């Protein structure tokens, strides 16, 4: 068939003679191609630039005689102005707020996803989805004030003003959970909807109820997608800045020693104020530090740490998707 179509083209004769079949030079096309390549390159170059600056400035920091790499990971106090460089208090606050956020976002997000993909009527879906998207569109600074002026007072009334600080990590964590909820929900829903219909029909055919189908067939089949969604959400929570900057506090949760930190398990108390890595970077860079001070280069070391964490998480999520994906 193909031959029949192409053949006449090749042999087509015109008044001038045979048609030239070589690719026509199209300068316009080349310009467009070049431009598109440039656009792609910009994003790559930006990434390379950021990574380069991070490493360069962080190197300046770690080379400083006042800084020791061991203390950076083992000390329990971060206060650059007096030469205390232990990343732990910042890391701790980041982990606490992210974990609290995930405790909110995971169960709720997956429940929403199951409802949307397995239960919701088209009408309910058409209401719930846009609402979720609105939630995703709220600026994070609004979430920050929501945490400080709505969630915090509720926590303080419920648990007690002496226990819960005005600026506290629990409130910031809860709101981070709400913030990443749409992300978890929509990514999980994508994973669940990707499970072929035949699997569900087979389950129904064997007499499974809707709930059994959802929990025992669809969710396990979509596990790799769900796992990837969780990890992307964690890295989003770790990187969240505005909420913690406003609601969590503006001083690192310093301890004089590890003994102090573990006394009454004080370090796990989320109702205290603390400063996350991102929050600290924002506060310090918002001040008027001079560029050559160690306080200034220290924020690059924190940023590098943050970058390593999120990069690791993203790599893990890709590995999960690749390794545990089930093909149907």
């Amino acid at each position, binding site marked *: 068939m193909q031959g029949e179509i192409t053949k006449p083209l090749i042999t087509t004769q015109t008044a001038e003679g045979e048609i030239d079949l070589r690719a026509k030079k199209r300068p316009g096309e080349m310009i467009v191609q070049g431009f598109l390549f440039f656009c792609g390159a910009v994003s790559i170059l930006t990434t390379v630039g950021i990574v380069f600056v991070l490493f360069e400035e962080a190197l300046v920091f770690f080379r400083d005689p006042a800084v020791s790499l061991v203390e950076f990971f083992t000390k329990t106090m971060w206060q650059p102005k007096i030469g205390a460089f232990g990343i732990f208090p910042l890391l701790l606050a980041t982990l606490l707020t992210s974990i609290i956020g995930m405790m909110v976002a995971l169960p709720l997000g997956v429940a929403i996803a199951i409802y949307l993909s397995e239960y919701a009527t088209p009408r309910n879906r058409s209401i719930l989805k846009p609402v979720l998207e609105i939630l995703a569109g709220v600026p994070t600074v609004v979430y920050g004030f929501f945490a400080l002026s709505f969630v915090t007072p509720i926590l303080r009334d419920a648990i007690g003003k002496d226990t819960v*600080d005005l600026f506290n990590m629990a409130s910031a964590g809860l709101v981070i959970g709400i913030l990443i909820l749409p992300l978890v929900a929509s990514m999980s829903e994508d994973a669940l909807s990707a499970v072929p219909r035949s699997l569900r029909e087979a389950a129904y055919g064997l007499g499974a109820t809707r709930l059994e189908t959802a929990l025992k067939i669809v969710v396990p089949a979509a596990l790799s997608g769900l796992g990837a969604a969780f990890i992307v959400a964690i890295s989003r929570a770790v990187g969240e800045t505005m909420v913690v900057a406003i609601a969590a506090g*503006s001083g690192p949760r310093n301890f004089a020693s590890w003994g102090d930190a573990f006394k009454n398990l004080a370090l796990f108390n989320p109702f205290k*104020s603390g400063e996350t890595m991102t929050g600290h970077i924002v506060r310090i860079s918002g001040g*008027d530090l001079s560029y050559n001070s160690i306080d200034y280069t220290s924020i690059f070391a924190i940023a590098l740490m943050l970058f390593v964490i999120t990069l690791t998480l993203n790599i893990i999520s890709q590995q999960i998707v690749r390794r545990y994906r089930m093909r149907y």
Partner: protein
Amino acid sequence: MRFKVLVVLFALALAVTACAQPAATPAPTTAPEPTAAPAATTAPEPTMAPEPTAAPAATTAPEPTSAPTEAPAASGGTLPEVNPLDVTGDIITAGSSTVFPLSEAVAEKFREEGYAGNITIDSIGTGAGFERFCKTGETDVANASRAIKDSEVENCAAIGRTPVEFRVGTDALAVVVNPENDWLSEGVTLEELAKLFSKDSTNWSDVNAAWPNEPIKRFSPGTDSGTFDYFIEAVMDPAFDKKGEEALLGAANLQLSEDDNVLVQGVAGDKYAIGYFGFAYFLENEDKLLDIAVEGVQPTEETVNAGEYKLARPLFIYSDAKVMQDKPQVASFINFYLTSVNDVIGGVGYFPAPADALDAAAQAFLDATK
């Protein structure tokens, strides 16, 4: 139909803005007067100070304790009058966040009286203000909540500037606690205050056994602010043998913020909190906070000017003789600042500078613009 209405509305809006533009401008065009600076030459001869270069550092404001009276007004020079209507050109200032509201108030008055140029006032902290004034030379005026340091004078010299100091007011630090706090009604001593903010004490009872056995929640301005530096210098260093900064920053439950509102919120929200910041911020939040006496003295204009209240500090603006000569608008602004600062300072929440300090500033101005 609706589209048409929109188009009409849009056109109307355009027309209105277009008309508003010329309407606002005529003021400066009617006054094509020469700049104000030459007026300085007509001023009565200052009594002494032969070379303007010698003047700057000499103005280290005399102690207010030496019984200030209204008499010394004669010894200071009388500033020439400024007509803001005649002043053209932009003015760039930057520096202390404490001086910011004061400069802002003066600038507003300057504009109200007819100045049509732009005054930039960046609130970036005293140190950064000097960096811009002395290192990069981007600014015409540096706002400062402390006197200039020798190292900063050197930086200035390197780019050919000699900072001239003008005292414009006095700020007091307010030490504040939560209104529910009932154990500090007698106030604190400087020593107690230093202990409350140091790493040596965790609970209130560590400082005074009669105080509650609850953690001290400390709220301090950020380490870049002049207020922090001043607190270290005036409270922490004397008590901790020059290691005040370490003593304060090593403390647990410490919140540092450049944003004074965060501090106000923090102290207002916690019974066991204590904080400090500029008196102006306290006045704005008088209903939410309690200010306590230091060494038995409450901050008021009398106690501050009499030197009885320990935590008061001078506020300055700095410029350079050459800048003032090259940019007459800067000289006019400083002149205006010195003559009208006392009209606005009360509204901002600071205390007027002692009369002799203001006179010294006027004299420095005359010397620099001679």
